[in-house]
C-alpha cells in the first residue's frame, strides 16, 4: 500500500507546473501520436511520400525562375536551385511543424475532452512527425548537391543542433498558436499568411546582403530565429561552394542571437500553454 499513487485534484491558480516526470512516464504516447500521424498522412494518396519531395522541388523551380533568373537576386555565389532548395528544406520543416502543432489541439479535441494525459504531448508529437518529411527532403538536397558536384564538409555534424534549434522555435510558436486556436479559430486563417511572409523574409535574401546595410538591419534580421538557422544550414552543407561575403563569421553572429531568441520563444510558448492548459477541455 506504500506505493499507491495518490492523485490530488484541486483548482490550480495561475500556471500549472511543467511536470517533466509525468511527461516522461507517458513518452510512449508521444511516440504513438507521431506514429499515427505518419501512418495516416499519405493514406489513400496515389504518390504517397513523393509529395514530400514534390513540394520543395516545385517551390525551388519557381523561386529560381523568379528571384534568380528574372530578378537576379544574389545567392552567395551558389547555383540558384541549390541556394533556394537548401533554404526550403529547413524552412519547410519549421513551417510544417509550426502549423501542425498549432492545429494539433483542435484536431485532437475529441481526445482532449475525454481522456487526461499531459497535454504537451500533442503539439510535441506534431513537431516530431515533421522530421520524416525533413529527412526525405534532405535526401533530395544531397542528390542535387551531388549533381552540382558540391560535397558537404565536416561542418555537417552541426545539422542535429540546427534541427533541434528549429524544433525549439517551431514548438514555442506552435504552443502559443495552439493555445490561441482552442478559443479563436482565426489562427487557422492567419497562420498560412503569416508563414508565407515569414518565409520570404527568411530564405530569399542572403544575410550577406542584409549585413551590408548596417547595424539596424542586422539587429532586426537577428531577431528572426530562423534567419540564423537557415544561414548556418547553408553554411554547413554548402561551405565549399560559397563565394563572396557569406562566411562563418556571419553564421556565428546570427546563431549567437538566434539561440537566445529561439529559447525565449520556447519559454514564452510554454508559459502561455501552461497558463491556458486547464481550460482547453472546457472551451475547445
Amino acid at each position, binding site marked *: 500500500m506504500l506505493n499507491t499513487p495518490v492523485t490530488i485534484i*484541486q483548482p490550480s491558480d495561475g500556471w500549472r507546473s511543467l511536470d517533466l516526470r509525468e511527461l516522461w512516464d507517458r513518452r510512449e504516447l508521444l511516440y504513438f501520436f507521431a506514429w499515427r500521424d505518419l501512418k495516416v498522412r499519405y493514406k*489513400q494518396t496515389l504518390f504517397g511520400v513523393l509529395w514530400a519531395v514534390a513540394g520543395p522541388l516545385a517551390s525551388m523551380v519557381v523561386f529560381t525562375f523568379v528571384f534568380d533568373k528574372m530578378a537576379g537576386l544574389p545567392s552567395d555565389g551558389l547555383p540558384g536551385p541549390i541556394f533556394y532548395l537548401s533554404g526550403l528544406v529547413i524552412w519547410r520543416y519549421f513551417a510544417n511543424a509550426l502549423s501542425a502543432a498549432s492545429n494539433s489541439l483542435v484536431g485532437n479535441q475529441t481526445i482532449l475532452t475525454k481522456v487526461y*494525459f499531459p497535454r504537451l504531448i500533442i503539439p510535441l508529437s506534431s513537431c516530431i512527425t515533421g522530421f520524416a518529411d525533413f529527412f526525405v527532403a534532405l535526401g533530395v538536397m544531397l542528390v542535387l548537391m551531388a549533381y552540382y558536384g558540391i560535397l558537404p564538409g565536416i561542418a555537417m555534424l552541426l545539422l542535429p543542433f540546427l534541427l533541434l534549434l528549429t524544433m525549439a522555435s517551431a514548438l514555442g510558436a506552435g504552443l502559443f498558436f495552439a493555445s490561441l486556436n482552442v478559443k479563436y479559430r482565426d489562427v487557422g486563417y492567419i497562420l498560412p499568411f503569416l508563414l508565407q511572409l515569414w518565409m520570404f523574409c527568411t530564405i530569399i535574401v542572403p544575410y550577406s546582403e542584409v549585413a551590408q546595410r548596417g547595424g539596424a538591419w542586422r539587429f532586426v534580421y537577428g531577431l528572426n530565429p530562423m534567419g540564423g538557422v537557415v544561414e548556418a544550414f547553408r553554411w554547413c552543407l554548402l561551405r565549399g561552394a560559397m563565394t563572396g561575403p557569406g562566411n562563418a563569421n556571419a553564421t556565428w553572429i546570427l546563431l549567437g542571437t538566434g539561440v537566445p531568441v529561439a529559447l525565449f520563444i520556447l519559454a514564452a510558448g510554454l508559459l*502561455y500553454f501552461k497558463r491556458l492548459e486547464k481550460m482547453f*477541455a472546457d472551451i475547445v
Partner: protein
Amino acid sequence: MNGETAIRVAGIGKRYRLGQTLDWGRSIRRALGKPSENAAGEIWALREVSFEVPRGTVLGIIGRNGAGKSTLLKILTRVTEPTVGRAELRGRVGSLLEVGTGFNPELTGLENIYLNGAILGMRKAEISRKLEEIVEFSGVRAFLETPVKRYSSGMHVRLAFAVAAHLDPEILLIDEVLAVGDAAFQRRCLGKMDEVAKGGRTILFVSHNMGAIRRLCPQCLWLNEGRIAALGNTEEVIAQYFDAVNSDELLPDQRPGHTGIRITRVTVSDTQGLPCQQFAHGDDIAVRIHYEALGRIVRPRFNLSVSGGHGLLFGANMVLDDIRPEAIEGTGVITCRFRKVPLLPQTYTLSLTVYDATGEEYVAPPIPNVASFRIQGDALALGYTGESADKYLENSYTIRVPYDWVFPDGSIGTPKWATGGPARFEDSHD
C-alpha cells in the same frame, strides 16, 4: 484520509461560463490569461459535492441529463479542473468516458488497439501482453488488418470496449458506455464489469440504465442540478429518484428550440384515471402522455417501453401496430392502456420516443426513465407458498407465465397460482 478510502471528494464545484459574446476587451484580457470579473451567464454544473468511496466499492451515479454526472467524472479523471474544492484518489486511475476515444478510422483494428490503449494509459508492453485476450474479447479477429472505417458500428464498439476492459486500474471511472451496442454486447460488458468489481477494484459508474446500476452497484449517488440529492443504498436511492421523477413537476424542455413536440409530463394512472404509482400484479395500467406540439405533426409514431430488472420488458410501439393519430396539434394527451399487466413486485420504468411519419426522425428526442411505477404484493398474495418465497421473489423475475412440471412418473405439479387454464400440451411418451 485513511488507507481504506479510495476516493475522497470535498466541496467540489464547477462553474461554466455561458454566452460567448464577443467583447473585445474581455476577450483579449482572457486570451492573456486574466480572469474576467464578469459574473453574468454563469452556470454551476456542480456545487458543494462531497463524498467518500471506500476501497472496493462500486458506486453508481444517477441523475437526469445535465445533472452534473459527466462533469463529476471529468473532474475526477482530470480532464477538466474543478473551480473549487478538492479530491483525492488513491490508486492507479483508469477512465472510460467514451468508448473508442482516439480511434483513427484510417488505421487497422490492430493499430487502433495499440493507439487507444496508449491513450487510455497502458504501456506498449502491457498491451502486447494482453493482446490475445483483447482480440478474443472483441470478436473481430478476422478483421484485425482492416481499417476501422470499414468496420460496422457494432464491431467498432466491441473492439473499443475490449481495449478499455483490459485496462487494469485500481480505480475505474465509467460514463454511460452501455448506451451503445446491442443487448448481447451490453450483457457481456456488464459481465466484464462484474468481474472487475469482484476483483476488489473501486468503480464509479454513471448510467441511465437502472437495471445495470442495480446489478452492479450496492451503493448509489443521485445528483440533481449539480448537488448530491441522495447517497446510500442503491434500492433506496433509486426509489427516491423515481419519486422525484414522478412528481407533478413538468419535464425539462428536452431540446430547446427544437421544432417538433415537447413532452411536458408523463403520468401513470389506474382504471379510474387517477394518478397512481402502486399497482398489484395483473392490474390495468394507463400511461398518460401530455404533449405540446409545436406545429401540426402528421401521423407521429409513439413508442413507449417498460423496463425493469435487468432490461427491456415490453412496450407499445405504433410502428409495429400501424395505429397512429392522423395528426396532432397544440397541447393534448395521448393515453396508452396496458391490460392485465403480468409484472411481479418491483419498480419499473417507462421510456418514451416519438418519431415522425416516416419513423426515421425523432420528433421528440428519446426520454429515458420518464416515469415509473411499482408493483406491490407479497409472495402469499401472489400464490407463492414456498419457504422464504418473499425473500426469493424480491428482485428476481419480472414477468410470470403459467406453467407446470411433468415428473418422471408422469405426475404433474402445477403452481397454485397457475391453475385454471387447460393445458394444451400433448402427453409426451418418451
